[in-house]
């Protein structure tokens, strides 16, 4: 025996996927605010050590192109890239890519807990089919949108906890965000500025924390949202 070299069990991954809108409209305060909020979140998540699970983070951006800027990696090894804003908003493509990653056992191991999916956007998806481009879009219509429907019906997608933040006011399409969250008990958060983005990510971090120390990370209630003003909760 040479126990000095013995390998102990690795804790189960608690995956967190961030889908970030990096379209041209995010330029300036919005993308800077997002970068700062992400850095704070990563720093906070790093503090968490528990034998029950280990946080893994992935970052997918959609702005012109769809990129996996950070493949799913243990939080202690994550080096956050700096987000830059450019291009249109291929949100559907991002949903589709996410669904593929969730179903790939090589990228998301079978042993992982159900992921937390976080969507950040400031506007309207640009890759929707013509019938979804009119004014009277509802949550129901978006739920039928192919890429989102595929995500929601996939095995892992179904079990995931979904959170969303809309950055801005009138330009944000909250219906698509609500369709993404797909849970009447979870509000979509509205952030008007960098501070709002930070507040959202604090709340998202608390959600991840409470799952990681919870009795059962796959069945945990969300932390309260009393820190948000009532007008910033979109239900």
């Amino acid at each position, binding site marked *: *025996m040479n126990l*000095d070299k013995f390998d102990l069990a690795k804790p*189960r991954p608690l995956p967190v996927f961030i889908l970030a809108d990096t379209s041209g409209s995010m330029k300036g305060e919005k993308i800077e605010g997002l970068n700062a909020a992400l850095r704070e979140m990563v720093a906070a998540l790093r503090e968490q050590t528990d034998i029950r699970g280990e946080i893994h983070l992935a970052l997918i951006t959609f702005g012109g192109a769809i990129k996996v800027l950070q493949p799913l990696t243990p939080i202690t090894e994550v080096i956050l890239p700096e987000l830059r804003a450019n291009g249109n908003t291929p949100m559907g493509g991002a949903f589709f890519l996410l669904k593929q990653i969730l179903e790939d056992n090589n990228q998301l191991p079978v042993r992982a807990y159900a992921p937390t999916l976080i969507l950040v956007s400031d506007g309207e998806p640009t890759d929707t089919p013509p019938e979804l481009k009119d004014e009277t879009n509802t949550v129901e219509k978006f739920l039928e949108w192919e890429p989102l429907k595929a995500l929601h019906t996939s095995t892992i997608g179904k079990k995931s906890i979904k959170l969303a933040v809309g950055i801005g006011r009138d330009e944000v399409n909250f219906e698509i965000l609500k369709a993404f969250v797909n849970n009447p008990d979870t509000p979509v958060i509205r952030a008007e500025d960098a501070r709002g983005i930070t507040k959202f990510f604090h709340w998202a971090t608390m959600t991840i924390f409470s799952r990681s120390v919870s009795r059962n990370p796959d069945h945990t209630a969300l932390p309260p949202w009393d820190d948000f003003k009532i007008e910033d909760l979109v239900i």
Partner: protein
Amino acid sequence: MSTKFSGNVVFDIKGKPYILNGIIGRGAQGVVYNEQQGELVIKISSTASLAQREELKRRYQWLYENLGNINAPIAGPLALLANPYIGYVMKRVKGHLPFTTLLIPTPDTSLGKWYNQETGGLKRRLILGALLARAFRSLHTSGLAYCDLSDTNILVAKDVKKFSVVLIDSDNLSVPGLAETLVLGTPLYMAPEILCETHQPDSLTDSHSLAVLLFMLLHLNHPLLGDVVQEGPPEFEEQALQGNFPYIYDPADSSNRSRTALPLEAVCTSRLTELFRRAFVEGLKNRTSRPTPGEWEEACWLAADSTTICGNCGASFYPRAISGNKKFCQCPWCSNLILVPALMIFSEVTGEASNLKKIDQNSSVIVLRSSPIAIKARHAFRGFFGGEGDQIVAKILWDQGKKSYEIENTGSGLIYLMRPVDKSLFELREGKSTLIPNGTQIYFDKLSKSSVTRSAKLYDAEKGAE
């Protein structure tokens, strides 16, 4: 991350003020704050429903009145908070870390260095395990159960040279059957019958939790989470904790073996192996088969006494002779070979000197060193457990000049020695010492046909077997 209360003052029911100064930790049931002067902590509960608040208040009142009567290292309420808060003031436990720190190695350090140097090694873990079991025994003999045992509400001494265990979060103590407990424990340590919702927490569910804690303390892996569970989906883990997968070291079922748990032979004596088997094979479903805290405590103390230290890497391990060469044993951490150290091997006998019968082979083994070793009541007599077992009956010292071990009677009774040459019995009076040549039998009580006496024999591999 609200820090609404910091800097605020809270009052206890006697009107005494406490200034809050920062959050130490938060759990599902509340937040724990530092008190400004640094000697106290304040726990403020956050349960919402009125019924739960009333129940908690009653519980804290009960704890406040009764914990003082229990001789166990529990940090309980020193004062109760006044309305509108539900909570209590308790002593801040300094110089301790959560038990969790003994389960998660520090990154960038070799496993051996962390287990043996940074956290004190196997012997220290066995002693801490004994102290933990002792705390439970005290609780249970007072009719209480812990109900929320986990690696986060047990504290252990930070200094590796110190041995101390303190139980905190005492608001999950309860008198079994008295009131429905407000919160169920943390799944890793929860008994299967609680997870299957067929039982409420009680002392038998505590015994399961204790067994899991001790197993993880020694093996660094959960006893029910083998490879097939750890590599499978999270649902398998739930299933395993409910008792639907076999114990990772189940002799009859190898389907749930673990590559990530330290091997039994590296960290357990045969007694500990047996107790773990009882706990996780029969004891999973048959609650009454589970070892009691008293059994765990004794097994841990005796195991600690049977460890030796590797001169090469400092690890403590059981010096079992390797096959092929009875004089040597091997350190499981660095594979270094060392001479089997001198041992005091205990057994039980009955009958008169001329007609002795052995009853129990090897009830315990004490590893001898050049520095004095204490023989305690738990080694020398049957029926001395817990604190009573700690009483020192004799000391074994190494006489460098005469190159022989010597025994000193430090107890309050006679010790008898039988010389191998002529089988004569020699009485060693209190306060006296004498040399013990190889092969001497030591008896800690009069020999008689109608009673059982413990005996010890010195075994020195170097000088040849006997």
